[in-house]
């Protein structure tokens, strides 16, 4: 058996474990996002949206669909990895992996794939709910799926780094509450950045969520505040940066070895 075959078995084991984990507790992991976004569709789409009119040439309800789907992907990818990896640190069963010959990149890939899997499952569920409220014709399924996957990977990496540094369960909720939620809400989920004054438009460009929401909006509706190439390029840069950083943390044993 070659090293690559062994690595694949290890990756598959971590991924299966992660999928089973969130599937077993689907009421906690999948359902809340579906309910929350349904409420968003009802309140912002049906009740308030009709009074807003159009945005970017689309009904407000159609305009917010991409952002809401991606919001589900972002929060679920992140929270899956941060809670799973931190729990494994807290209860020390991360040691099962640390003593094994699994290379760091396989461990990282397994957890990130697990987080991405939950993000995509929730994204698909939210999309299914959206289709109950709207009649969107998907502009480019390939763009939509690719940016969805990249977003899930990026925020899974973010969750992993958060879990590495976390020393308590409080620490794994601080970043989602004080960083992730503002970034998501200010990332153009509910509005076009063209509505913002110049300074705030410029500042918005530092928000990685903006690129992903706009790329996803392009895939779904065919419109975007950001050129598609820039959106993909920026997302890829963030992914590479966080991957390199995560591997460096694992190599040095930060937060997991003494």
């Amino acid at each position, binding site marked *: 058996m070659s090293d690559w075959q062994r690595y694949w*078995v*290890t990756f598959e084991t971590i991924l299966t474990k992660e999928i089973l984990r969130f599937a077993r507790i689907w009421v906690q992991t999948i359902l809340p996002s579906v309910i929350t976004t349904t409420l968003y569709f009802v309140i912002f789409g049906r009740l308030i949206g009709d009074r807003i009119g159009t945005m970017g040439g689309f009904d407000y309800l159609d305009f917010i669909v991409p952002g809401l789907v991606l919001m589900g992907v972002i929060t679920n990818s992140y929270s899956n990895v941060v809670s799973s990896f931190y729990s494994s640190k807290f209860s*020390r*069963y991360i040691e*099962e992996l640390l*003593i094994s*010959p699994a290379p760091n990149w396989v461990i990282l890939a397994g957890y990130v794939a697990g987080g991405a899997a939950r993000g995509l499952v929730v994204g698909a569920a939210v999309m299914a709910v959206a289709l109950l409220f709207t009649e969107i014709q998907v502009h480019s399924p390939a763009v939509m799926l690719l940016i969805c996957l990249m977003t899930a990977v990026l925020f899974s990496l973010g969750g992993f780094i958060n879990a590495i540094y976390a020393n308590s369960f409080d620490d794994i909720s601080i970043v989602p509450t004080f960083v992730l939620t503002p970034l998501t809400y200010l990332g153009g989920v509910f509005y076009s950045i063209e509505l913002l004054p110049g300074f705030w438009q410029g500042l918005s460009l530092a928000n990685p969520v903006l690129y992903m929401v706009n790329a996803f909006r392009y895939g779904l509706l065919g419109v975007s505040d950001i050129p598609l190439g820039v959106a993909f390029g920026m997302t890829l840069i963030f992914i590479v940066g966080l991957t390199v950083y995560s591997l460096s943390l694992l190599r040095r044993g930060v937060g997991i*070895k003494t």
Partner: protein
Amino acid sequence: MFALDAQQLTKVYKGGLQALKGVDLQVEEGDFFALLGPNGAGKSTFIGIISSLVNKTSGRVEVFGRDLDRDPQGVKSCIGLVPQEFNFNLFLPVFEVVINQAGYYGIPRREAKARAERYLRQLDLWDRRETEMRRLSGGLKRRLMIARALVHEPRLLILDEPTAGVDIEIRRSMWSFLRELNAGGTTIILTTHYLLEEAESLCRNIAIINRGEIAERTSVTALLNKLSTETFVLNLRGRLSELPELGGFVLQALDDCTLEVEMNRDHTINGLFDALSRNGIEVISLRNKQNRLERLFLEMVDRRAAASEVGA
């Protein structure tokens, strides 16, 4: 080739605590080796470095000739670890815990299932395979940690305080299992800080670690030969009216029917019984007052503590 060859191993934790001060330790392939030491002596740090859970400050570790720095994956694949603390996902069933561990070592699922079944049966856990970890007793968890550590069939099994908190029956069955495993060729290192009976009963060679240094490294037999005296407690048939004078033996009556006898290594038990018979004293049973290894261990630890205080 050594199963384990540690040279000049040091560990300084953040905050300055020097847990290991240049530890040299070799363990022969096929050995059943005990690493003894009081709490905080550096045992778990030493084990942690070998099993890649603790970053060493300096020094070198080789496991079956593989260098930990140059070939960490090779070293890891040779080692099975039974840690001191329970480290399970408490919500997983027993079978899944063992299969996942096999998966981390790259063992395909079908093979993993077969091995998991074999070790769970050997350790009397097969009937509990669907039970969630949190529902297992402490003794069953200890046994599961052994099954989990063996699923990739390591050549070196390290057990850190393996029978802590385990009742006598389970402890004995674990000892028997470990003896068989060692007879099958697996090198075993176990650490203990209080169950010296365990080390005396199971191990051939021994090292005593104290304050981050190896205080002694020898065979269990050689170590026991260092005892100059031994103390026995005798239960007598009749009541003792008067304490007899026996040359070469120091006697003390614990009560009317119990006698404590200290004898040096020049004398034999036969000689003691002869002398007691001549004085009309019949013995029903006898036992060691203290585990012999425990006594030696405490003597050594006390000696080194006194020496370091003088040095300071």
